[in-house]
């Protein structure tokens, strides 16, 4: 009996400890419950970088971290997944579209200088385009569909040529986003702009570039991701001698307050070494998450209550013990989630609730065995003992098979699916303990109380009801 008392104390201690853990350690909620965005970012190879290696992936991760810091999201999670993906979790983000735009752009900024010899060429192309465009209204009036379509196609082709010509006009100078020190949104008059500061090296390059521009009376081209944002000119009277010193510049272009802010965040975070694409976005509003929490609490308590009532009604005294063991199970499991830092997601909660229904399986097996032994005429104590003993092999087998399915889910599944596998597996392992050790200890304790040691509390209708084989 000493061993029993020790176990009883151990169980009591575990219950108290788990209540303390549940109260003290906060439960980590997944984004689907607390609200937020989860983005999967696919890193894409380019012509120069044909294969994404760990180096690129790390660089991308770093840039993304920088940009997220600018977004002001608390507790973001950024981790690489697989060989060429980055997973980003943004809890409580209130403008998911903006977050996605900020994270998604490559943001390769570079300053280029105009090549005067190419300008004439660009002019010709631009005039050709204008000519085509002016022709269009006249054609539309005439109503010749084929001619309109042909002209439209010609315009599109010409626009492409103009775009290419623009790139020809501006030559790379080596001054690019690498030399940026800071970026900020500014209001220039009533136009939104992004002000930037270069580091020392960048400031020198910028001074040389603007000096040359002032002397040759050419313009600068500010490009973002290979697209011309603006082409400012430099005042020769002021800057022909030194260029613009001090390392500050302002980028204008058709910015709104929002798009200027987005560029600011991207530039501050740095440019991405390779292009990326956001291939998955799962966003759940905070209120929806709270609704889910509420409904899963109701479902959990409802499920637990139904199982408890069923066990007590059907199995009587052992049922009460199983019910106590089940409550202990629920407490221990929930405490284990908090303690191990398991992030609870909606499927995870489903797994937990389901495991409540499955946790009593072991008790059902044991009690059915016990009843059989009682019917076979064994004493109460020996029936209970052999009920536990002989049901063990079935319990072990059935739990191992569930664990195998969980392992398959955990290793091969992604995201939410893993949460379910983890909670179900933890539940299965803990239920082995509560259903066998806890209920056995409690049962033996109950048997030591004289007034409860009655077979009819364990199995209804023993004397009259013949065994199953005799009726058919």
């Amino acid at each position: 009996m000493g061993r029993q008392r020790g176990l009883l104390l151990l169980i009591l201690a575990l219950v108290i400890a788990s209540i303390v853990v549940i109260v003290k350690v906060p439960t980590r909620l997944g984004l689907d419950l607390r609200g937020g965005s989860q983005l999967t970012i696919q890193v894409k190879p380019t012509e120069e970088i044909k294969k994404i290696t760990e180096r690129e992936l790390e660089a991308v991760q770093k840039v993304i971290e920088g940009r997220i810091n600018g977004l002001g999201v608390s507790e973001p999670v950024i981790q690489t997944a697989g060989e060429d993906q980055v997973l980003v979790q943004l809890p409580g983000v209130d403008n998911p579209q903006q977050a996605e735009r900020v994270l998604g752009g490559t943001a390769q900024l570079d300053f280029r200088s105009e090549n005067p010899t190419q300008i004439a060429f660009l002019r010709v192309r631009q005039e050709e385009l204008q000519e085509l465009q002016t022709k269009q209204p006249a054609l539309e009036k005439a109503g010749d569909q084929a001619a309109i379509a042909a002209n439209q196609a010609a315009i599109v082709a010409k626009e492409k040529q103009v775009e290419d010509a623009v790139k020809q006009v501006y030559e790379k100078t080596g001054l690019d986003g690498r030399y940026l020190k800071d970026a900020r949104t500014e209001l220039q008059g009533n136009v939104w702009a992004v002000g930037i500061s270069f580091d020392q090296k960048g400031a020198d390059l910028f001074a040389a570039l603007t000096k040359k521009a002032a002397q040759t009376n050419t313009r600068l081209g500010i490009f973002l991701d290979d697209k011309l944002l603006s082409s400012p000119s430099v005042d020769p009277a002021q800057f022909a001698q030194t260029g613009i010193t001090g390392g500050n510049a302002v980028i204008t272009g058709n910015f709104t307050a929002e798009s200027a802010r987005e560029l600011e965040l991207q530039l501050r975070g740095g440019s991405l070494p390779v292009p990326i694409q956001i291939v998955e976005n799962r966003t759940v509003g905070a209120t929806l998450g709270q609704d889910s929490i509420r409904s899963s609490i109701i479902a959990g308590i409802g499920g637990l209550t139904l199982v408890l009532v069923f066990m007590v009604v059907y199995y009587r005294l052992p049922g009460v013990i199983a019910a106590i063991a089940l409550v202990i199970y629920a407490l221990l499991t929930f405490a284990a989630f908090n303690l191990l830092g398991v992030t609870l997601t909606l499927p995870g909660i489903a797994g937990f609730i389901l495991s409540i229904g499955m946790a009593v399986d072991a008790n059902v097996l044991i009690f059915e065995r016990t009843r059989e032994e009682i019917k076979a005429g064994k004493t109460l104590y020996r029936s209970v003992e052999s009920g536990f003993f002989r049901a063990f092999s079935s319990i072990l087998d059935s739990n191992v098979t569930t664990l195998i399915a969980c392992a398959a889910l955990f290793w091969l599944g992604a995201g939410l699916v893993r949460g379910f596998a983890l909670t179900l597996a933890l539940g299965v392992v803990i239920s082995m303990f509560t259903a066998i050790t806890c209920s056995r200890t409690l049962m033996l304790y109950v048997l030591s109380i004289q007034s409860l040691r009655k077979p009819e509390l364990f199995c209804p209708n023993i004397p009259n009801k013949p065994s199953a084989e005799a009726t058919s």
Partner: protein
Amino acid sequence: MKLSVIRQRGLWWAISSALILAGLAAMAILWTQIHAPLRPSLDFVGGTRLQFELDCTKPNNCDRPIQTAAVRDVVDAQGLAGSTIQVLGQEQHAVTIRTTNLDVDQRSKLQSALESKIGTFDVKKTQIDTVGPTIGRQLFSSGLLSLIVAFAGIALYLTIRYQFDYAIFAIVALLHDVLITVGFFAILGLINGTEVDSLFIVALLTIVGFSVNDTVVIYDRVRETIALNPGRHIDDIVDDAVNQTLTRSINTTMTALLTLTALFLFGGETLKNFALALIVGFTMGAYSSIFVASTLLALWRERTGNAIAPVNATATEANVSKDPLG
């Protein structure tokens, strides 16, 4: 009461076959319509699903319910004809739109077009799911792979713990459960447009993990009874084993079904189909363990001339079943 599973096995098999055939027929019809046996959600084929709800804290914003036609006009004007639109909620203040895969700019455009036409949406009640086609394929193949791995793992475990023929029929029973569950959702997809998502694969795996339990428990009893009564005919042994474990099979499934019913009723939209899949699968799991796996084992032993187990083989099996606690 005693159930004679063996005598009426023709009936049990007929019921199973009818259920499986109905499911297969539904899958075939779906295949002719959408070239897939089940309606895949965007998890597997990629796409965008947006859920918006009107912000009722703003004055005059929630005056009237959302009209599907009005939403469709906006969606069509964005060049997204053929999208699925569904107005939700008792007051009809929420709407879900399922389209092809939209990038962030297309989505923002759609959202602002909708807001100007219908009213301001509450950002805290917005749900966005967008999955690229590659990710969809990735989710699908990893799901399928985990199913196969789980099957193989369970087969391996049962082969080690029992004999090979036990393992085979346990797997047959599992396939039966999974097939009927899949068939059930094919029928739902046909008549109700129900889609299957990654949670459905989770449900199938859970069914596999759970319903093998019943089979294992019955087989465990068969093995034990053979060991205790060498020389008895397999038909009798199976009948006895099934009946001795019947209450347990029913009660265990009962308790799991009780929690699942709670999940189905109160667990919210996301978990509804998940709970339903498990309810079907677990019920079928109990059915197949009691009526299919056991009778198939008996038939097999009969046909292969092992109806009455040789005495020395059973002695070793008995040891296996007795030692775990020691």
